């Protein structure tokens, strides 16, 4: 899995899932079509053209509510990777289940990336899952690490439920203990 695209920088730490998609848009019963409500109350974000597949942001991205509508909305908008200083736990888990790569990079690497994007907003950034690297043209690469099982599932198109269900006999045995 390899994402190459220009990137949108969304400055700020602790961007919670109520910002990613406000609760008033949670009354549907489908996963689709939520991109139009992504960051609905953030005019600065809404001015970006759709097309970028990478979002760059601060610490603790996706904190707060467990709503999976947050990664659904990001993916529906077109994002395939979020590069952040750190992620909230539930968001990170929800992201990988929807093919959205949560890429945690150290502060210095994020600053370097943001400066490069400031100088050239069209700069193509590559997130390569297999090698766990983020690379910039003419600026080398930065290593990241991701949960190995999530990586395995993403690279091989596996889903977690199928994996869990391979343990059906042991689940039954646990229930009969």
């Amino acid at each position: 899995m390899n994402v190459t695209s220009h990137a949108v920088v969304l400055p700020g730490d602790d961007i919670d899932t109520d910002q990613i998609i406000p609760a008033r848009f949670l009354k549907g019963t489908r996963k689709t079509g939520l991109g139009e409500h992504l960051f609905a109350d953030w005019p600065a974000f809404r001015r970006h053209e759709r097309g970028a597949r990478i979002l760059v942001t601060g610490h603790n991205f996706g904190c707060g509510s467990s709503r999976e509508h947050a990664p659904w909305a990001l993916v529906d908008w077109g994002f395939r990777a979020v590069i952040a200083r750190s992620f909230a736990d539930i968001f990170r888990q929800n992201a990988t289940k929807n093919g959205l790569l949560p890429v945690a990079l150290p502060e210095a690497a994020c600053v370097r990336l943001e400066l490069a994007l400031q100088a050239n907003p069209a700069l193509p950034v590559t997130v390569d899952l297999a090698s766990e690297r983020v690379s910039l043209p003419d600026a080398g690469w930065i290593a990241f690490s991701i949960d190995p099982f999530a990586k395995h599932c993403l690279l091989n198109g596996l889903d977690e439920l199928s994996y869990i269900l391979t343990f059906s006999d042991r689940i039954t045995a646990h229930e009969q203990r």
Partner: protein
Amino acid sequence: MKRTLFDKIWDAHVVAEEAGRPAVLYIDLHLVHEVTSPQAFAGLAERGLPVRRPDRTVATMDHSIPTNGLPIADDAARTQLRTLADNCRRHGITLYDADSAHRGIVHVIGPELGYTQPGMTIVCGDSHTSTHGAFGALAFGIGTSEVEHVLASQCLLQTKPKTLEVRFEGALPDGASAKDLVLAMCAELGVGGATGHVIEYTGEAIRALDMEGRMTVCNMSIEAGARAGMIAPDAKTFAWLAGRAHVPRAAAWHAAVDRWRELHTDDGAVFDRTVVIDASRIEPMITFGTNPGMGMPIAASVPANPADARLARALEYMGLTPGEPLLGRPIDVVFIGSCTNARLSDMRAAAGVMRGKKVAAGVRVLVVPGSQAVKRAAEAEGLDRVFRDAGAEWREPGCSMCIAMNGDAIEPGQYAVSTSNRNFEGRQGRGGRTFLASPETAAAAAITGRITDARTLGESP
């Protein structure tokens, strides 16, 4: 091997664990509501899978349901609620439906009906599932994909989190509540400070809390980023649960209590991290910013730190000036409710402040009990009269203005003092501005129309 409370529950629920893979963790109780489940049931249908254990699955309607009674006017909410009812009927899942006498906020009715028990693993598609940890359960919020996993397999894939002991030494002073204690913790740890950890709350101040206070504390574990929060069960836990609808009976009850007595962290067990907080110094708290970690003692001044961009943005949204005090600041709305503070003790605390008084002119006060059972119990004590006579609205149970997706919302620019758990931008309504506080502080603000220290209410200004 000395083990923590968390270790004991984790170990007892690992079904399988392959090298380099997360553990397959068995889930004893799966709580379901209308907002985060429809896509999970649809996923099951696509795969042609049944619900593995409908007997371990319990559903209620809380998030999008109106609190001003039936019928439901909002088409989208009505469809979402009907979808839940259809899914529960199809799969044989117990549902506390819109007109059920036991319906309520999922984290209020789980314990109330005795579904929540010590030693269990409990999940729900809601981040405040941590509430149930008050009973010595491992309880955490999950996304909708994981709701589907649990429906289909009664299991989840989980990487073992780290453990964090938060020890509250000393006694909580009079006038400070469980809500103040947990807001003080969020201020200490920060909104992401416990990420990757399960918190165990220990210490004298935690032992002294009643079960409802413990639920308030565990509820907000997620507001410090924790995966879950838990408190070892004790005599208070067992007494609170005894006789509830879904706990074991007779000899099975006594056997269960004997098992539950083992659910404590062994002497000498090691946590990955420990934070010690002096409970004796905790005062009534209020938030000033746009996440629950931005809190301070109610009489303090809004912090001033020109170098902190996060703070600057928060204060700009809140319309506050660095260095200004909050006491005396006019407010527009008071919300008393939510899975954090909508139990009977919370209703009593708020009514205690409001009894015989009137809501300040121009202030809207919404009191939303956490469940039909809380509503009935409060009405039996006449608390509804206290609120109504004061000029507050006494509503039907639900999440209401905590998440503001059911029509209960504050207006853009308005200020609310709220007993709920999140002060994120727009959380209680687009453009709305939230001060999180205890039921006592919220009730005091209702009476004066200003941010008020409940300890000084009635004294001349």
